[in-house]
Structures are given as C-alpha cells and as structure tokens.
C-alpha cells in the first residue's frame, strides 16, 4: 500500500479542484490533488492524449488559457514538493483517523483492468470536496437503446478522444449545455439533425439583474447560437423527445412540441432519423464522498441534492470545504471562484497569513450564483416527461426496473419514501448505484405518493458506503478501525 501525508487533500481536479489546490498551495499549504481522470481538467477541461490527433483547444473549450496557466503553476509547485498530483486515483472511502482524514483510493484509468487494483491512502488534515457532477437523466421509451448516450458522454468522446459519437446526431434535453455539445459535434463532422430543447431562453427576460451580472455568459450562448446557425443546425425550443426509435439500435427519435401548459400539443409529433441521440436534463452533483463524511445537504433551485456551504465554502463538518458543482450546479466560472475561496479558507485554517483581499472574488461568486439560479428557473425539468412515463418505460437501466414496478411499489405496496421503493423494487441497486435513475425514481415516487420531492428521496440514491467499485479483497483488509456501516444497497 502506498501512503502519502499532506496538509490538505483536494478531491477532484476539475475547475474547482484545480483552483482550490493552487490557492491553498500558493498560500503555503502542502496539497494533494486527487482525481480519477488520467489527465487533469475534470469533465470540463477533458483533453485527448497527444496520439489521438491534432487538437485545437479553442474548438472544444472555454477558458483553456486559465486551465493551462493553472496546470503549469501546479506542475511547478509539484516540482518543489508543495503539490502532489495524484491522477488515476479513484477515491472509494474517506474515514476520520484521529485528527486527520484517511482518503482511500484505488489506482488506474479503470482500476479493475489488471485484476486487483493497487491501493493508495492519502492522510490529510483538511479536505476540499470538488467532485463535480454528471448528466441528469429522465426515462422515456427507448432510452436504453444503443445509440442513446448522455450529452456529456458525447462531449467526453470528443474532448477525450476526438471521436464523433455518430453520423447523424440529435441533441436533446434542457439547459445551455446542449449548445456546446451540438457545436462540438458539428465542428468535428457530425450532422446535427436538431437540438431539441424543452425550454426557451426567452425566459431569461424574467431575470434582468441576474443576466446583467454575468454578461459574459450571454455572449457565450450567443456565440454558440451563431455557429449552430452557420452549421444549419435547427434549435427547436419547447420541444421534447418522446421516444427513441429502433429495435436493437437507435434509428430515430419521436419529438413533440409543448404547449403553454407544458403538455405535448396534439399533431406536433414527428420523427427525426438519427443514429445517435445525446440527451441530458441538467446535472446531478456527485455527492457520495461528502455524504460519507456527514456533510449537511439541501435541495437546490434545480431540484438537485447539493452540499450546504457557508460564505467560506465550509461544509457542516469541521475541516471540510466544498466547491463547484457539488455545492450547486453553476458552471466552470463559478466553480473556479468557489474553488479559490475554499482553497484560501483551508489555507487560512492552518494560520496562513497572506491570503489577501478576497472581496472581489466574493462579489463575483454572488453574481455567478445569481445567474445560475436564473438559469435553473429558465431550464426546469419538463414535468411532462414524468407524466408521460408509461408503466413499460425502463427506469433503472442496471436492474432493469420499469416505471410500472416503481408505481406499484408506491400505490400497491405503500412505499411512500424513495428509500423503501429502492428496497422493494430494486431501482438504484445495480452497478451504477442509482447514479443514473436516482433522480427520476425520487421524482416518480413523490409523484405517485402525491407530494413534492423531499431531500430524503434524493439522499436515498446519493448515499453510497463505497464510492467506487472496490474488490472484496480490499474490503477484507479494511484499513480503518471500524468496518463500513450502512444499509448496503
């Protein structure tokens, strides 16, 4: 077993984690940056290996200069021993051990690739959680067909491999993220048949102050819209995907237009031929580690479970800070600002004297959070997707649980809480541990129980005793004083 000992462990090397690590290290703290990815940058600044082909960052990335300058500075600090960069480290558990934390990892791009993965433990006195988020999904008929991928998955293929997911692509769901996904695919040679957006950006007119506070965001969106126009990509607002078509692979999608009440308007259904559908409905923050630590959570404006933090990005657990999407989905700029504040606060807790004036940073955070809040209200989950979720629609892809089984667990077996639905009907009990179906199962449970989604419903699918696939042999040699507790599942 390899062991490292540092002052601060930053979990995640995306925009928030990189900013936190750099801020803390420059203030004199010895930092380990731990990330599952083989290259730094997280999902946002994912980049291909040099052999994959000619890579022009400007074609796929925003803020690439900020990434390279932060990356270069972290490498310099790694040279002095101030920063330890641990790539390909999948954290599966964090346990308290005396006055420090033991961060347990398994090593590798896919740790089980060569049998039993090598264990690594990082001992740290403080933690910054910057674990990011992944695409939020809603079930609809046919969404398990090969060729249906997540919007983020389509982008990861491009950013990480320079591979285009298919020849004719429909990008669908909701949120401003759909635009860079469509733009990237079109630039790299896919025919983007349509962008199917459930909401309309015109709703930003209701939030003039939030928009004025973050004018750069508007420029970004206008840039994508212009380029999509040049690629002749039609963006259909207030449209949803009703069904993925095909028997063993995707051949097209059925889409429909929403009326003012948010229902599918009769006679507007039509088919679009495509071999790939890239779909996403906002993002789900990755919270198993902060939940393991006992960090308090709340439900954010977008309906996602997020970690509660104070003005210094401190969580409810002493010695643990959080930044970026884990504290509320808001994009890379907000993540960078929060990461920096978290890193400075963690450094200050060691008595670092030179943390400087951070008032401008705090003002920037306020305006970016204001914009994020407006964005969530402009791009809500279309309730029609849940209303139309027929009994035959697959919800849990791993355990192959359909919506009817979930409905019957609630209305016939009386499981009014998502946690009980999970135990009775098994959604969220398979390989992915509810990462994909958790949000939808929570929504469907609440809907059938005739009440709004509660924090407990979301927590039922976010609590994971083991945060990454770990061989039983590793658990048998559990390094902590106590074996892991919990309801399994």
């Amino acid at each position, binding site marked *: 077993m390899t062991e490292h000992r540092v002052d601060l462990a930053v979990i995640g090397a995306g925009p928030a984690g990189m900013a936190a690590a750099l801020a803390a290290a420059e203030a004199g703290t010895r930092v380990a940056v731990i990330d*599952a990815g*083989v290259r730094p940058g997280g*999902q946002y600044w994912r980049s*291909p*290996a*040099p*052999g*994959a*082909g*000619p*890579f022009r960052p400007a074609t796929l990335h925003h803020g690439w200069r900020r990434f390279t300058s932060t990356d270069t500075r972290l490498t310099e600090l790694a040279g002095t021993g101030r920063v330890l960069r641990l790539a390909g480290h999948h954290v599966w558990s964090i346990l308290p051990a005396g006055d420090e934390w033991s961060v347990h990892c398994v090593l590798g*791009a*896919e740790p*089980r*690739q*060569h*049998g039993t993965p090598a264990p690594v433990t990082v001992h740290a006195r403080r933690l910054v959680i910057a674990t990011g988020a*992944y*695409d939020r999904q809603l079930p609809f008929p046919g969404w*398990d067909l*090969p*060729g*249906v*991928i*997540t919007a*983020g*998955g*389509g982008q*990861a*293929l491009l950013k*990480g*491999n320079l*591979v285009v*997911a*298919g020849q004719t692509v429909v990008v669908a769901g909701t949120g401003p993220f759909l635009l860079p996904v469509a733009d990237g695919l079109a630039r790299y040679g896919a025919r983007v048949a349509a962008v199917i957006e459930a909401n309309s950006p015109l709703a930003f007119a209701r939030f003039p102050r939030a928009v004025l506070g973050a004018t750069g965001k508007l420029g970004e969106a206008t840039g994508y819209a212009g380029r999509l126009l040049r690629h002749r990509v039609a963006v259909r607002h207030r449209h949803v995907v009703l069904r993925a078509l095909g028997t*063993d*692979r*995707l051949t097209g999608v059925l889409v429909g237009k929403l009326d003012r009440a948010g229902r599918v308007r009769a006679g507007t259904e039509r088919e679009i031929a495509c*071999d790939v559908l890239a779909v996403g409905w906002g993002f789900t923050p990755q919270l198993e580690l902060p939940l393991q630590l006992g960090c308090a959570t709340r439900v954010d404006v977008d309906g996602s479970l997020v970690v509660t933090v104070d003005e210094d990005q401190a969580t409810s657990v002493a010695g643990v800070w959080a930044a970026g999407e884990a504290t509320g989905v808001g994009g890379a700029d907000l993540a960078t600002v929060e990461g920096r504040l978290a890193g400075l606060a963690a450094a200050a807790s060691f008595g670092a004297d030179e943390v400087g004036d951070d008032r401008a940073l705090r003002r920037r955070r306020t305006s970016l959070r204001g914009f994020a809040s407006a964005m969530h209200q402009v791009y809500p989950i279309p309730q029609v997707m849940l209303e139309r979720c027929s009994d035959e629609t697959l919800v849990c*892809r*791993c*355990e*192959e649980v359909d919506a009817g089984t979930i409905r019957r667990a609630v209305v016939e077996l009386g499981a009014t809480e998502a946690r009980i639905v999970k135990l009775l009907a098994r959604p969220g009990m*398979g*390989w*992915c541990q509810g*990462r*994909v179906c958790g949000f939808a199962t929570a929504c469907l449970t609440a809907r059938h129980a005739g009440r709004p989604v509660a924090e407990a419903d979301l927590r039922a699918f976010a609590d994971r005793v083991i945060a990454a696939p770990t061989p039983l042999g590793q658990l048998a040699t559990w390094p902590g004083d106590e074996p892991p507790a919990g309801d399994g599942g």
Partner: protein
Amino acid sequence: MSRPHEFEILFDGTPLPCRDGWTIGAALTAAGVRSWRTTRHGQRPRGLFCGIGICFDCLVTVNGQPSLRACLVPANPGDDVRTQEGTAR
C-alpha cells in the same frame, strides 16, 4: 501536434483501427459498433451511455478481464476485446 499513432485491436476476433490515447469505447464507437454487452434479465443490447465511468452500461471484457468500463479502459495494440453476456461469469 504529434502525428497520431495508429494500431489495431480485436473485437470478437475482428481487427478494428485504433489510435493512441483512445479508450476501448472510443475505438468501438469510431468503428460504428454501438453495443457490446447484453443485460442479465432482458438480454437487451448495451453500449456507451454516460461515457465518463458513471453508468456501467458499457461493460466489456478486455484481455480476459470481464466487466470493465469501455469508456475508461485505454486501448493498447492487440487488445482482445469481447462482448459479454449477462453477468459475464
């Protein structure tokens, strides 16, 4: 801007072109392969879905090691990639 290093991997015995730095999932996608696993209960075909190691839909057998996430496994020359059925055990 280095030139891509190209090689082949085997998918159920058929050679597929691959580039240095690609994942197994990227190589299969680039070759037009959309599924390489069937589910335990419904025997439904599955392939890439989340693309970032979250969903475990893209599980595949590589060099005899089953249930690996194709979206994460880096491809190497001569890799023997095989479809897997059910639990692959």
